[in-house]
């Protein structure tokens, strides 16, 4: 929206902050405050201590963080590979209908509630020969299934924007399809690929509902631990865990966005 008069601009900005701050920013600040607090009887948490963070270092919180990071990186990379592959394959399909069918197939995990995805994986892989029930792999598989849709969708959108002249010219210069893919198409898609990877990573870092149904005792991601802490009433250590999760994810996303700016050519 273009607002030219100075007073009107102030008014628009005031409305924006009035809506934005309470809904988006303040809850995070309250969590940060709670993670440093000793009691919470008034409107805001009070008392100052770093005890909750010291407890985290001594407890198994670092294990949970590593578990979450490994799961999110593995699921993110798997989802990126699968989603990109599917998007490239769908693009070369003849006929709009078959392309739509592939798109719909990949949208399925988004449309189905993640609890249902977790339950169906649990049911499907609880009998030999495919007995994944109770392994860490099933958690990674579940996360992959849930986030592949987003990777597929953003790569599909980027492919649709890519000028076909690039690959046609590369082919006219004698490049085989594989050479065109690795040297022209994927490098041109790189900004979208890193963005998709960041999105998948962030979604996987925060995944709770499907994980709850699947996680084995030795593979306990951070969101599950946060849920457990608040569930048994340890609100302040739960808040400290939440801050760790938030900061880690934000730092990872910032790192990914730096790759993206260096890789964008146009």
């Amino acid at each position, binding site marked *: 929206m273009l607002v030219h008069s100075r007073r009107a601009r102030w008014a628009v900005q005031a409305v924006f902050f009035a809506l934005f701050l309470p809904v988006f920013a303040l809850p995070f600040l309250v969590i940060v405050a709670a993670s440093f607090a000793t009691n919470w009887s008034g409107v805001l948490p009070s008392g100052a201590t770093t005890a909750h963070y010291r407890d985290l270092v001594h407890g198994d919180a670092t294990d949970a963080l590593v578990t979450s990071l490994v799961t999110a990186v593995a699921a993110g990379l798997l989802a990126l590979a699968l989603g990109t592959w599917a998007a490239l394959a769908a693009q070369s399909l003849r006929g709009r209908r078959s392309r739509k069918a592939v798109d719909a197939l990949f949208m399925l995990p988004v449309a189905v509630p993640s609890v249902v995805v977790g339950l169906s994986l649990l049911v499907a892989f609880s009998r030999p020969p495919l007995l994944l029930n109770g392994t860490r792999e099933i958690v990674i598989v579940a996360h992959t299934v849930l986030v592949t849709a987003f990777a597929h969708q953003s790569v599909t959108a980027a492919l649709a924007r890519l000028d076909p002249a690039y690959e046609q010219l590369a082919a006219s*210069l004698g490049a085989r399809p594989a050479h065109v893919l690795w040297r022209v198409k994927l490098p041109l898609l790189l900004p979208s690929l890193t963005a998709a990877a960041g999105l998948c990573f962030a979604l996987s870092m925060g995944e709770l509902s499907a994980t709850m149904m699947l996680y084995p005792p030795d593979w306990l991601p951070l969101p599950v631990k946060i849920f457990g802490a608040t569930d048994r009433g340890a609100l302040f250590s739960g808040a400290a865990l939440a801050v760790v999760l938030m900061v880690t994810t934000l730092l990872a996303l910032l790192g990914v966005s730096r790759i993206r700016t260096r890789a964008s050519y146009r």
Partner: protein
Amino acid sequence: MTGIRFEGVTVAYGDNTVLDSLSLTVEPGEVMALLGPSGSGKTTALRSVAGFVRPAAGRVFIGGRDVTGLAPHRRGVGMVVQQYALFPHMRVDANVAFGLRAQKAPRAMIAGRVAEALEMTGMAAYAKRYPRELSGGQQQRVAIARALAIRPGVLLLDEPLSALDAQLRSGMLAELARLHRELPDVTMLYVTHDQVEALTLADRIAVMDRARLRDCGTPQELYRRPRTEFTASFVGNANLLPVTVTGDGRVGLAGTDVSVPTGGAAHGATATLCVRPHLVGLGPGPNTLRGRVTEVQWRGATHRVAVEVDGHHVTAEVRELRETPALGDEVTVHFASEDAVLLPAGGTNG
């Protein structure tokens, strides 16, 4: 030496035929311009040589070899397109080397060929730049260098100058003509909607309209002796006037008898008289027509005067006038008999 041959090539998307049984031979080393308005099928014809469209019928030959079903990367044609399509993530030298690297040429040969191609297009000083750091004209030079580096027998140019401004365009046109003199063995297929580009550069012009080849000949033939009304109007915006043949070398035009070469046209037949605007003069002369001025355009060196003669428009392009006629003035225009061409009447199909 590789030529190109189209044999009844038809391309259709669903019910929409975009190229209708094109048969055309481009001789080795020849520059053939495919000239036509948008939607005439000229780009589709070029893309069928590159292998980006599959003909529904007909065959395409490059250097005598049937390439109709061959994948684009096996055809060995160089290509330059309107939007350059330089690879934005590669420097200029890597762009030019792309084709040779893709074909796994020896490294020493690649360096030599890249330097040669950049030298030839005057871009040697820009080898380490990225495409986004170059102007449109420079990018197009790099695109030409990239196509030439693989030493193609056939070079396909798809509206290569349409994205450049007028001044750059005439400079690049001269450059392309020079490249053709330096590489006389390279067959060029040049798609354009601009008659000046076609007339300047081409050895022969194929005029296309509505998915069909309408006319083909040297620029001089098409300009001086067009065979169809479409060619006459698209190449050089000729005046086209309906006439009736009244005798040997005589036709009736708007109640006046004028003398033009009638060839073997039968007495009483209807035909179309074609005269170029710059060959029409103001004032009385050998074949004089009388009419009213409907438009006067000043174009710097020339004046373009539109005159309505008995319901038909005649445009005269004359040297800048000292006194311009006013709209509605009654004037006379004339043309020499040998400057007029008689075409078969009606239809643009020829």
